[in-house]
């Protein structure tokens, strides 16, 4: 009688016919070892699993029902132990066979050409002006500066008068202002927002103001009627010109590179006194021999100064108590310098080919 046949018969009967549990399980184990004596394909692995572990008709289900469950009470511990041992080994072998088969199947799959490109996924570009802005804000935020934008449509008062422009002064003409029908105007610089902040908040103040500004300039490679300005200012009881120098030196080193040096040149702005223009050592050449610095070794990058006492007074602050500094520059120009852009009008055409360089 085959061992398969024996699994279908109650163990009591088999014992009465002279079998004993050890011997029965021994035969069964021998049959299992024969089944998996050779490496199995995935299909054979599945067949092995069905034959031995199948829920309804598997051999181990049969022994569970006919041998273990039907065993006389005194034999149950022995049969139970033998059944468990065999089941454990069968399960391990089936699992190993399945894994081996899966491995073989993966190995049989064709190799990929890993040099083919992945299908294109679009990731949007950040506009270079915005990119420059983010870099600047990342420098000033840790220094305690808040950020504001302010309105672009301004009054003559905020854009000029409050900033100490004498109403009848050539400096107003130099601004090439675009006016609205009712006498309001498009701000020519971000400074009016300085006044608005000083009017509504109390020192100590540290602010970066940025946004669009407008000039009645015919567009060309270096002029655009709309561009972006950024201005930073600080007002407190003991801010000095030395603090202005230190702050801007830190800023240009961080933005243009650690070797960059700043040179402060006296200049004139109606809203600052003393006023200075800042030149930086050319980041593009070391010997003053490149087109960008026009062979001078210096590039003029920003204007700054101590806020004029009249401006503080116009904004409702007592200049006997408070003083501060302010500095401003064109973000477009900074972006052009940093990213090697030679035409400001590229900034405003929306040309995808231009923009995608900044992804």
């Amino acid at each position, binding site marked *: 009688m085959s061992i398969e046949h024996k699994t279908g018969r109650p163990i009591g009967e088999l014992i009465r016919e002279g079998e004993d549990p050890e011997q029965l399980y021994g035969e069964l184990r021998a049959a299992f070892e024969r089944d998996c004596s050779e490496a199995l394909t995935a299909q054979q692995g599945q067949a092995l699993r069905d034959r031995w572990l199948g829920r309804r008709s598997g051999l181990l289900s049969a022994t569970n029902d006919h041998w273990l469950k039907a065993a006389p009470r005194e034999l149950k511990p022995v049969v139970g132990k033998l059944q468990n041992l065999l089941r454990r080994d069968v399960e391990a072998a089936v699992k190993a066979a399945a894994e081996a088969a899966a491995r073989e199947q993966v190995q049989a799959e064709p190799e990929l050409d890993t040099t*083919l490109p992945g*299908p*294109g*996924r*679009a990731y*949007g*570009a*950040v*506009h270079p*002006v*915005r990119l420059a802005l983010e870099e600047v804000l990342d420098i000033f*935020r840790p*220094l305690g500066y808040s*950020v*504001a934008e302010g*309105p*672009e*449509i301004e009054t003559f008062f905020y854009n000029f008068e409050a900033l100490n422009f004498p109403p*009848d002064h*050539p400096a107003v003409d130099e601004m090439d202002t*675009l*006016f*609205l*029908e009712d006498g309001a105007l*498009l701000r020519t610089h971000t400074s009016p927002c300085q006044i608005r902040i000083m009017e509504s*908040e109390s020192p*100590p*103040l*540290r602010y970066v103001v940025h946004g669009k500004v*407008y000039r*009645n300039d015919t567009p060309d490679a270096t002029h655009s*009627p*709309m561009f972006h300005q950024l201005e930073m200012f600080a007002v*407190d009881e003991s*801010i*000095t*010109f*030395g*603090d202005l*120098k*230190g702050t801007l*030196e830190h800023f240009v080193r961080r933005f243009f590179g650690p070797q960059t040096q700043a*040179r*402060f*040149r*006296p*200049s*004139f702005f109606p809203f600052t*006194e*003393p006023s200075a*223009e800042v030149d930086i050592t050319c980041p593009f050449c070391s010997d003053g021999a490149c087109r960008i610095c026009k062979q001078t070794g210096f590039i003029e990058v920003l204007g700054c100064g101590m806020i004029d*006492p009249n401006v503080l007074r116009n904004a409702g602050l007592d200049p006997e108590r408070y*003083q501060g500094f302010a500095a401003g520059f064109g973000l477009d120009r900074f972006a052009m310098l940093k990213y090697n852009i030679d035409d400001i009008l590229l900034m405003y*055409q*929306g*040309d*995808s080919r231009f*923009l*995608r360089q900044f*992804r």
Partner: protein
Amino acid sequence: MRILLSWLRDFVEIKESPRELADALTMAGMAVDAVESEAGETVFEFDITSNRPDAMNHFGMAREVAAIYRRPLRAPSTACAESGPPAASKASVAIQDPDGCVRYVGRVFTDVEARPSPDWMRRRLELCGIRSINNLADLTNYVLLEIGQPTHAFDLDRLAGAAIVVRRARHGETLVTLDGEERDLTDGHLTICDAERPVALAGVMGGQASEITAETRNVLLEAAWFRPSVIRNAARGFKLFTEASHRFERGADWNAAPRAADRIAALLARTGLGRVLPGQVDCFPQQPRLSLIRLERTHIRRHLGIQVDDAEVEGILSALGFEPSSDKSGWSVPAVSHRLDVERGIDLIEEVARIHGFANIPATLPLVGAAPEPTPQAAEDARMRAAVRGLGYDETIGFAFISSDEAGRFGSDDPVSLRNPLSQLWDVMRNSAVPTMVRALEWNLRRNQPFVRLAEFGRVYRRSEASYEEPGVLTLGATGTARQASWAEPAREVGFYDIKADIAVLLAPFLANAPSIVTEGVPTYYRKKHAAGLRSDGELLAWFGELDPELARERKIRQPVWVAEIFLDKVYGKGLRRPTHGKLAKVPAVSRDFSLLVPDAIDFASITEAVGEMPDLDSVEPAEVFRGKNVPDGSYSLLLRVWWQRLDESLTDEEVNEFAAELRSRLQSRLGITTRT
């Protein structure tokens, strides 16, 4: 402004090389743009700021040099041999408008010969870019370049009554200026008149009738001080900008007027080109009051962060022509007529700082005394920008100007017009950002870009009750393929539902519940029935859809173009939704498919509305939408996939069957739709 090294040396000793001198002046605020060598002469090209008219001449620049190096300054010589009757007996001067004309100095020359100027003078003029004309014109130009005082020469014999009267013009008076133009004058114009009529537009240009000619023998020379605002208004009114008006409107020096007159007299006498009558006719009704400026020692440190030695302060101010007198706490410094820009202590501090050298002020960092204010809506903006970028839109920035025609077609508010626009295409501030985006899409299509996705964060502009509003708007533009075609994936044209899906992603961080779709009132620049809006809590958040094909064709756009406007003030105003964690289901959801034949008039929103609320209902999805073969005209076939979910336990088949039956009956009773399976 061109300045000659040799001319500077007339007034101050210079040992430095031209390059060294240029650097030193630049670092003191006199920016040298170029140092040139011409015909053995060194020429500096200066860019002088508008607050420093005093330095726009050789003597003024020499004063800067003298201050920088603390060297003595020599004034131009005015020693002059005079002869004949006193000038005052040959000409008279009267000022009737002492506010417009503070001082008028006349000098009289006789026996003047029209001859070329000496070579050395012509050479200097030419190096400074001024063509030699005749001796008198050259002399006035020379002194203008030398000490910055504009002067004017009249043919004395052509002045009625040999008189000068400085007065406002009378209504109806006219003047033919030297350029041959006849000017209509009003009482706003300050004029130089003879006994009868205007002979010059004060401080701007002389008149033809009293012009110096080859026949001129007797000359009245004018050196005056006119109020800057008066000159500025006249120059602007006539669009007549001359060397003289340039100087006067920036502020000349009333004490330089007599010196200039004497200097011209001296040079005339020296060159032997005429006779100088003794004395000036100096009309100076009232010397303007100059303030006494207070400079506190502590204020220097307070503003600059350093203490400057008293001797250095006094040395600098004296070299610049001030006369400081010191006391315990600082200095009293009378203002001077050659530096009208210096009127406060802070102005003196700036003078000390720039001559002492900005480079000698050590750099420090201010202490941070306050926490920064959070920027309103910064977090909202950062989230939106990151999402836009992730969806593959390239950020663009467009001009804020559009044409009034565009404003009429795209905007609902009256546009804000510019009084002096750059061009007719840019004559208003945009009341919609769509035309800006359409222009950018058009730009790319003309350059054969197959895949265009643009996003602009900008503003639109409109009038409000009190002033103006500039609400933020995010504009999206898309055309061409939905994704770049590759070997792995075929191309697909972008469509309405791509844009709708993108907007859903962009709005999700701000909305607790899905927004409702708006199909009424869609702006007409969108294609009818190919566009919609989104609303949440009664606020319109976005319009999106295909650009009206007619409008597109007018712009030579021959393919569908998709745009969206997301009103950022409304969206950001909602704030970022605070996410909260709910329970996760322990068992999988169960779905049933329903095959429906739906009349075209019933849209998907009506179907979800008809399904309505139901216990354990998770979602209702359109799994397939199909028109055409085997589907009768006027209907579409919809495969509706509905999911149910109970968090803690599995739904039984019986329960789901009941739900499905209820759903079928609702579709039947509410919409008359029979399910096919």
